[in-house]
């Protein structure tokens, strides 16, 4: 990457990720342009602009030294936890559930910020935990507690998708931290028991319906099964080469719900076919592979846990969203990173990307600190 002609400040940018990422965002913008019947407004423009803004933020994050991350981990976690409680209180006072805070210039969804924050705080915790204690209760209980508190708060919002994302990100960091496998097996067994109970006693009706519908979408084709059915029709009717740019009847005639947000992949697949789908998967593959390589090449435990956790958080978004639109998972309202229109998701994912870039930078720049 570093040639003599190219200035060093440009050459040292993480092009390996920026090129595929930008390609994906621009492709997403094209899909949004088509979804708006060939208009840049209201989605395509803001999508690109947001990417630009959050990319700048990510590049700034990437310049922060490791110590700052370590130092900020607990305060950031505590601060976001406070915001979650605040949201909950405001919802209780205002009546009805609320997920965001209105800051005046933007609405902030604290649960989104919690996704990278949980990875950060757990990486910090296990980094500072003496190795011998990793396999003891002193490793497990705080870790689980750090996950359970925010996940619980998000769960009662209620936002099952984000709660699962937080849990997944956290559990992956614990797993990577080296906690005994039997604990995970035990937890898995407990979950096998608890999930049916939670399904019947904890989930809201609409959440239960989504799960039931996922199991048999055709049972209620005009109700909650509608989303999945229409999404599959959009993807299936696209075929291998797609119907052509701007020719997607499912999205243009409004059969596909949420065509520009959660189901943007179906919108894309209808017009670009399997070819477009493979391109998206390939780009995601490149980004995730980059994240893993950054983690594996990192010399220290904190960097490793942080980078892998961030990568996995992005992966969780992708996997759940794509499984949902293809009828392999229930409808849980998780957008597709970098393609779906939506500021919160873009922000979270760009924080993850920025963090991984920072980890990469710590290694290549040696012990330099800011």
């Amino acid at each position: 990457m570093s040639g003599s002609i190219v200035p060093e400040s440009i050459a040292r940018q993480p092009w390996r990720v920026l090129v595929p990422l930008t390609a994906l965002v621009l492709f997403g913008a094209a899909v949004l342009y088509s979804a708006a019947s060939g208009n840049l407004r209201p989605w395509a423009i803001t999508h690109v602009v947001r990417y630009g803004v959050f990319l700048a933020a990510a590049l700034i994050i990437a310049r922060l030294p490791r110590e700052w991350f370590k130092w900020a981990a607990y305060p950031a976690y505590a601060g976001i936890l406070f915001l979650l409680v605040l949201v909950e209180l405001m919802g209780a006072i205002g009546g009805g559930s609320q997920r965001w805070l209105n800051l005046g210039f933007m609405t902030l969804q604290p649960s989104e910020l919690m996704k990278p924050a949980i990875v950060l705080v757990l990486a910090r915790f296990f980094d500072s935990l003496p190795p011998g204690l990793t396999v003891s209760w002193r490793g497990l209980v705080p870790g689980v507690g750090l996950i359970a508190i925010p996940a619980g708060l998000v769960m009662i919002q209620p936002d099952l998708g984000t709660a699962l994302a937080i849990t997944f990100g956290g559990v992956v960091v614990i797993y990577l931290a080296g906690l005994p496998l039997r604990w995970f097996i035990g937890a898995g067994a407990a979950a096998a028991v608890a999930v049916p109970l939670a399904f019947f006693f904890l989930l809201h009706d609409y959440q239960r319906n989504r799960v039931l519908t996922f199991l048999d979408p055709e049972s209620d084709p005009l109700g909650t099964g509608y989303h999945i059915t229409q999404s599959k029709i959009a993807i299936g009717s696209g075929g291998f080469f797609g119907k052509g740019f701007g020719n997607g009847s499912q999205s243009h005639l409004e059969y596909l719900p949420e065509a520009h947000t959660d189901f943007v992949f179906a919108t894309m697949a209808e017009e670009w076919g399997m070819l477009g789908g493979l391109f998206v998967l390939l780009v995601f593959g490149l980004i995730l592979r980059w994240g893993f390589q950054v983690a594996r090449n990192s010399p220290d435990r904190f960097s490793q846990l942080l980078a892998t956790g961030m990568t996995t958080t992005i992966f969780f978004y992708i996997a759940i969203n794509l499984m949902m639109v293809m009828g392999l998972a229930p409808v849980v309202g998780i957008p597709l990173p970098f393609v779906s229109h939506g500021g919160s998701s873009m922000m979270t994912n760009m924080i993850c990307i920025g963090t991984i870039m920072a980890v990469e930078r710590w290694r290549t720049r040696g012990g330099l600190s800011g």
Partner: protein
Amino acid sequence: MAGTGPHVSSGTLKNSFDRRSFVLGAMQGGVGLLLAARMGWIAVFQNAKYELEAESNRVNLTLVPPRRGWILDRNGAPLASNKTDFRVDIIPDRLVDPERSINLLGGLLNLSAIEVQDLKDKIEKARGFQPVEAAAGLDWDRFAAVSVRLPDLPGVIAQRGFSRFYPTGPAVGHLIGYVGPASAKDYEEERNPLLVTPGFKIGKDGLEKTFEKELRGEPGARRVEVTAGGKIVRDLDSRDDVPGKPVQLTIDGPLQDYAARRLGLESGSVVVMDCQTGDILCAASMPSFDPNRFANGIGRIEWKMLSDDDHVPLRNKVLRGLYPPGSTVKPMVALAFLEAGLDPEETVGCGGGLRVGNRVFHCWNRRGHGTVNMAKAIYQSCDVYFYHFAQRIGMEKIAVMAKRLGLGESYPLPVPGQSYGTVPDPAWKLKKYGKEWAVFDTVNATIGQGYMLVNPLQQAVMAARIASGNVLMPRLIHGQKPPLVTSLGFSQEHLDFVHKAMSDVVNGPGTAGRAKLPIPDVLMAGKTGTAQVVGLNISSGKGGQWKYRDHGHFISFAPFDKPRYACAVVIEHGGGSGAAYPVARDVMTFLFDPAKAMEVLSGMEAGWGGTPQQRMEAKYRVAAAQYGVGAPKVSDQDQQSATGAQNQPSEAPPQPIASAAASPPPEPVAEASTAASPVPQPAPSPSAMPLQGPTP
């Protein structure tokens, strides 16, 4: 894997991380492969299935209601046609906020409170995707006002279509019936998507119902691209409809209209038949409903108006009205006498009554007719003559003759139903009531009272058969091959005799002198009849409460020496035959000189408040002002069989067992009068006449 050994160092953790991150990466790669495979399955292997589903999402096949076949009169003029119009329909299932949409629509269409209420009734009753007509026959402005607001009105459809049009409105209401949107029941019987296509109407009554199959035609189709919300994006292609086949009737349109209008304010019917073919030229029943107004369902006010009317505008009196025929049976009875060998010159003395055993049966003319032979008995309608000879000849022969002439018969006509009435004879009475036939039964029957009940069509058939001497069957459908007309086998001499006597009813010293046609060289023959409705102890039958007044009958044919047309008129509670024969005279006049007949009618309609349509509109306005939105709802069943409800019995309704002879009501005009007033004057009231019972 991760050791649980006593010593855990950062080295073991590093190893553990490497292994576990590898597992995690492999898992993520696996998920990626799974997703790619899943996508390949959906997009490539199941592509055909999903392409079809996307296509069936995108493309909506809309049926275009076929143009309904016209109903034509014998000369090819339309009695029912179609006119293009702008219409607005509602699909209730697609309404998002019914209350708001209907109120908005009501404002755009300029509907009155009553119309909005009717619309809400209809929407409430509609099931599934059954469309409801909000308005039809819209002008461009109102149609455009709705069209531009369609995006705000999901479930509302504005389109150009055809609606049924009956040029003469109420005049053909009973005969032709009407069309309306298919009901849920219709759809259950015939699962045809056309039935729930907005704007499609099916025949609900009368010929529209009978000939539904012929008239319907084949729907056209329009393939359109629609959004999930049902909004049409563009037309893809379309197929034209195949219009229904026309049905040509034997009806003479102008005559039908004339007869209906001529009935005026009366409740009655007029039937005209061709004496050569049996063609029904006119079958008018009034008052009627306007089938044009029924096409989009029956509103509350309309329904209240029609069902409250004691003139039963919902009953087709031609086929469903059953009446004691009164003296109109006398030519038939006379023919039975002649066939039985009675010498027409044999006389009986009429002194106003006839003593049989220890009972006296009165003639309608209490003063008596003096010496009466058969001819005089017909033209003067002498009851005593018939009492006397009927006992000699016997009821069986009279009943046989009545049936030969078409009474008590249900004809093979394409109509939803006929009430065929009763021709009583001893066997019938024994079977029905388990009682022996009594003398007074014969007495009643010979003057068309008692158990005997006929409908106006039967009376016309009787007149036509007497006129022609042939077995004429009434026909309603034109263009079939001319019927094979066979003779009834009467001697021409007998027929001539009866014809002459019937001519004398009108043109001689008979009971209907004012019925003489104002046409030179055309003489009409006829027979009056006055049928009592209640005993004389309740009402004289002439005046007083309308529902107690006598029915007026008149059967006739013309020209009397070469019969061409036969006509039967019934005026319910007209107070006697004097109400009936002027109508017959004018209708017959119309057949020979329409201009002259129209002149008479226009004078009368000026006094009645216009044509039936104009009068109905005025009446609706009054009713609307009176009831406002307070009229009761029209129930589903009512709507289903608007006319059926009034037409249910096809057999004679149960009658009380006669225990006495009915008193013959007087003929209104005993002498050949020269007065030309079209409004009958009640004859001097024979109020002294009590209902007859056995006299000691």
